[in-house]
């Protein structure tokens, strides 16, 4: 089985973005960008399935600027076999991403698509579910465990009340949660090898997908800042202050 893994280039998770003072958005110039952490988990899961003999090819795909090639190379350094970049400098909303991915799926015929549950920039948590809808496939979202058989995949999901297990017919979409695995670091020889792995560059128009945004961002502002309070010297003072505030 082939597994397709969509990956997104986003601000590194350790960094706090600066909101532009004119309210037009977030300033990402000269900021370290990395693979969305949930997508790293998705790549790792696909590679593990390949290593276990349950998948024979792992293809990473990204929709974004030319620089997203770096993100795809990272995926290949981790172990993916080849990559597709659907190149555009426009902002592509989850619905349009799902439509492009649907077209990629039609070309590639994967048995499963494994992707992150959310991107840490727009925090939408939509694309996997949308792709599943457009394809008419089952979806195992927020996965903390994936067991692949020949005709079905059993997915344990992190839900508000605990852990839910569902069984999905194939092909299916899986979106990853934090506990699914711990992604490996690419080793230097693999980073070198990844440079030679095939990377196809396409454009949204190759797939005849209209990526015109449906949402218009009117402004982006900083959230209200929370003032730091006071440091209390001891537990007695803490208790007294809490009581005075009526908090306990």
């Amino acid at each position, binding site marked *: 089985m082939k597994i397709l893994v969509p990956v997104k280039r986003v601000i590194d998770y350790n960094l706090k*973005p600066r*909101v532009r003072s004119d309210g037009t958005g*977030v300033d990402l110039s000269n900021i370290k960008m990395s693979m969305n952490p*949930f997508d790293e988990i998705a790549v790792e899961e696909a590679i593990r399935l390949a290593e276990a003999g349950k998948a024979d090819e792992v293809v990473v795909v990204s929709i974004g600027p030319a620089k997203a090639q770096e993100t795809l190379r990272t995926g290949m350094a981790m172990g993916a076999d080849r990559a597709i970049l659907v190149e555009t400098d426009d902002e592509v*909303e*989850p*619905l349009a991403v*799902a439509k492009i991915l649907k077209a990629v799926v039609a070309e590639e015929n994967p048995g499963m698509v494994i992707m992150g549950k*959310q991107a*840490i*920039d727009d*925090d*939408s*948590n939509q*694309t*996997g*579910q*949308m792709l*599943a*809808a457009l394809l008419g*496939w*089952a*979806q195992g*979202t927020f996965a903390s465990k994936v067991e692949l058989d020949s005709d079905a995949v*059993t997915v344990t999901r*992190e*839900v*508000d*009340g*605990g852990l*839910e*297990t*569902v*069984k*999905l*017919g194939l092909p299916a979409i899986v979106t990853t949660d*934090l*506990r699914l695995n711990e992604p490996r670091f690419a080793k230097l020889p693999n980073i070198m090898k990844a440079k030679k792995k095939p990377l196809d560059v396409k454009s949204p128009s190759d797939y005849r997908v209209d990526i015109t945004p*449906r*949402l*218009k*961002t*009117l*402004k*982006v*502002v*900083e*959230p209200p800042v*929370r003032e*730091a*309070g*006071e*440091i*209390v010297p001891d*537990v007695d003072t*803490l208790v007294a202050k*809490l009581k005075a*505030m009526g*908090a*306990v």
Partner: protein
Amino acid sequence: MSALVLAEHDGGKLNPATLATVTAAAAVGGPVHILVAGGDDASAAADEAAKVAGVEKVLLASDAAYARQLAENVAPLVAGLMDGYEAFFAPATTTGKNIAPRVAAMLDVMQLSDIIGVEGPKTFTRPIYAGNAIATVESSDAKLVITVRATAFDKAAAEGGSASVEAVSGPGDAGLSTFVGLDATESERPELTSAGIIVSGGRALKDSATFEATITPLADKLGAAIGASRAAVDAGYVPNDYQVGQTGKIVAPELYIAIGISGAIQHLAGMKDSKVIVAINKDPDAPIFQVADLGLVADLFDAVPELTGKL
């Protein structure tokens, strides 16, 4: 603008997140209907939904296919009902987040996730970048599909309404997925997202026995829910559904006590709207102190038992 709200329920009882979602839907203007999709036992939740203030009608879809809220089955039901509505709202719970985008794609609508404010009939605010920026966004789609951050809206009154309950049906089982089981986290405590007080523990709690021995007595004393950082969940101190943060649960209790939690941006994203924040950490430079109303620089293994004893 007429709005359909997806009820979150466990058969018998309505989840309070539904009430906050009703408030958000009502703010858009126009009548609000609630859809209760569930198994045979869902009529109790529908009766409860009918009493919610401001709700005009309750649609009840009882079918074994909807009992477990499988998105593959519930989304086509919702999409089929949307001919009669201009907006669909679901709480941004794991159930809502699973179902709503599937509905949006079926309707060819770009969803607005996790809204925290209603600025106009098609204009909403939502946090991005782990809450480090707030975007005001306007939709140009013919219909709206929205998930609602429950902590950002007051709950609609659970009593006072007298909506009619109408039975509806949908395509039923899509034949794509089956429910296997739920390993539910058993707890007598208040539910995390609706608790008035939360005591949260981080990596510093060492292991599950130490977490239990340190955090539980304080939570018991305060009648509090227990939360955790990702690090504490990853290390197996507590179950996954205790995680507070950008990618876990969003909470805003009256009092949030962060114990041995450093205050990474991903954690702050989930709790910084709490009314009073207390932090106990031995590192005076821990970022959690930048949002805490009251900070205590101390070893938690001394301070927490002392605090429990003195409350």
